[in-house]
């Protein structure tokens, strides 16, 4: 499946992937409204890890055998058999955050929306042609491509 891959040699630690992620997943899909009105700051599903001078954007790897899916106690977290995308069926989720602690990459964000606990994770922007983080990266440090099977 096509996945997002980071190229740390070109990641310049601007964190614009996070901004673009937030806007893409906002109701308004407008930068100012997403941050100012919807107050979505800090809800990005991509995480820029930094240890200067190196930085790298990581997000869900959509593993072949996802630990978050295996650990989910309510069966909310599933891997789509067709697209391979790992996602949370929010109506089934009980907010135990087992997925958060079981993710080996630490890329599931625990958040509370209207008092309800939910996991927030990359869905590869399935509503768009290409993930917003990739499209918006000013230095092409993120690519969306097919690289064959992974461990």
């Amino acid at each position: 499946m096509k996945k997002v891959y980071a190229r740390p040699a070109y990641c310049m630690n601007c964190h614009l992937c996070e901004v673009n992620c937030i806007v893409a997943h906002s109701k308004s899909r407008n930068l100012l409204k997403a941050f100012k009105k919807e107050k979505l700051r800090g809800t990005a599903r991509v995480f820029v890890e930094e240890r200067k001078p190196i930085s790298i954007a990581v997000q869900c790897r959509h593993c072949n055998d996802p630990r978050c899916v295996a650990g989910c106690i309510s069966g909310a977290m599933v891997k789509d058999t067709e697209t391979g995308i790992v996602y949370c069926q929010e109506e089934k989720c009980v907010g135990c955050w087992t997925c958060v602690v079981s993710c080996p990459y630490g890329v599931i964000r625990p958040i509370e929306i209207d008092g309800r606990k939910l996991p927030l994770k990359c869905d590869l922007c399935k509503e768009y042609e290409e993930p917003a983080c990739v499209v918006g990266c000013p230095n092409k440090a993120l690519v969306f491509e097919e690289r064959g099977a992974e461990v």
Partner: protein
Amino acid sequence: MSTFSLKTSEFSVIRDENKCIKCLACVRQCGFDCHQYDEENDSLYTIDANCVNCQRCVYICPADALKIYENPKPMRSNNYWSANDLKNIYKQAETGGVLLTGMGNDKAFPGYFDRLVLNASQVTNPSIDPLREPMEIRTYLGRRTEPIALQKQKEKDKTQTPIVPIETPIMFAGISYGAISHQAFEALARAAKEFGTMFNTGEGGLPKDLYQYGDNAIVQVASGRFGVHSDYLNVGRIIEIKIGQGAKPGIGGHLPGEKITEEISTTRMIPEGTDALSPAPHHDIYSIEDLRQLIFTLKEATRYEKPISVKISAVHNVAAIASGIARAGADIIAVDGFRGGTGAAPLMIRDHVGIPIELAIAAIDQRLRDEGIRNSVTLVAAGGFRCSADVVKAIALGADAVYIGTAALIALGCHLCQKCYTGKCSWGIATQDPYKTRRLNPELGAERLYNLLRGWSHEIKEMLGGMGINSIESLKGNRLHLRGVGLNEVELNLLGVKHAGEAI
């Protein structure tokens, strides 16, 4: 800042709080620590004194919340003492140092390119549409062979070096690895290869991993001889002896030890962390005869397979010097005018030494023609080419090709903040800080440079077509295609052009 200082902030960074989303991109991208984040209050603020107006934050801000304004001059207006004069004196009164700067001369000297206009065909001689008809802008670098004559075949001249074709009369100027990042250097090399033109290594050698671009490299041998060895000379297509640089004629160079990283030290063949000092003169060149020795030493070392270029800065006697260089056996003469850029130069030298490239081209071309040796060398002009029209005018004045340096860096994102000498470049160009160099993706950089060459080449073809000529060779030194506007008699004579309105 605790000590009292007369230096004032040149710029103000204004943040529109209604737009700022506190993503902190500005804080992370500013190379000069102007943008600050107060974690305790979750607020952003700026230290205006640090701002150099490089515009990095303005471009990176996703919310378009930043604007940079020039601060009003804090001194009373004076037609003789400019605010800059005062600022420089205050600075020197505090530091006692030489004023340093980067990039090219920014003083308001009258530009000749701006007072020369080109011709176009009307009625009596048809103009040519380059989109429909072939238009040749391929340029050849090197010493032309003697004209073919119906005589007994002479023995082949074994000292004849080959001619190097380039697909457009535009090459990238010498910018050393060290002055600019590996990423920027690689972008230049890639673009040159893709377009079929040349890039120039500058005086800092060629990193091993870029030897693959050797066929498109002009390798420089400068007074510091950094990175010069047999492989280096043989991997390049052309060898250039650098005598002078337009931005700082008569003085050498100094790359501070902090910039000499491991890779640069290997490439330059000097110890890590030591200053790279280029002496002002070549210590083995004190005459044209000495220059001839070095030219032929290099030709011997490369089995007469590489044309030799000699780069000088445009100074008062440039025509006579160029004539000497041609007679010394150089195949290419590169002349760098006073608008030429640099990574670091003393401000006084950059702004007050050297002559405009337009006059230098005209003077050299005329002198070489008068002496009947114009054919023996290629004349490459450099120093402040801003657009394709400047290139066309330079070629009409007598140049064969041009170097673009500043324009190439601008294509890579440079905003002419003139702080290259600090090594803090926010755009990842003139820095060796690994946190910043990664901002310049060579793939994207090469694409931008390629586009620039493509655009300019198209425009050159259009201008040639308009003049009714279909080959750049027909334009070379063809000053009848130029007319001066608002130039006096002396200037017109020096440039060898008529005034606008005068017919042939």
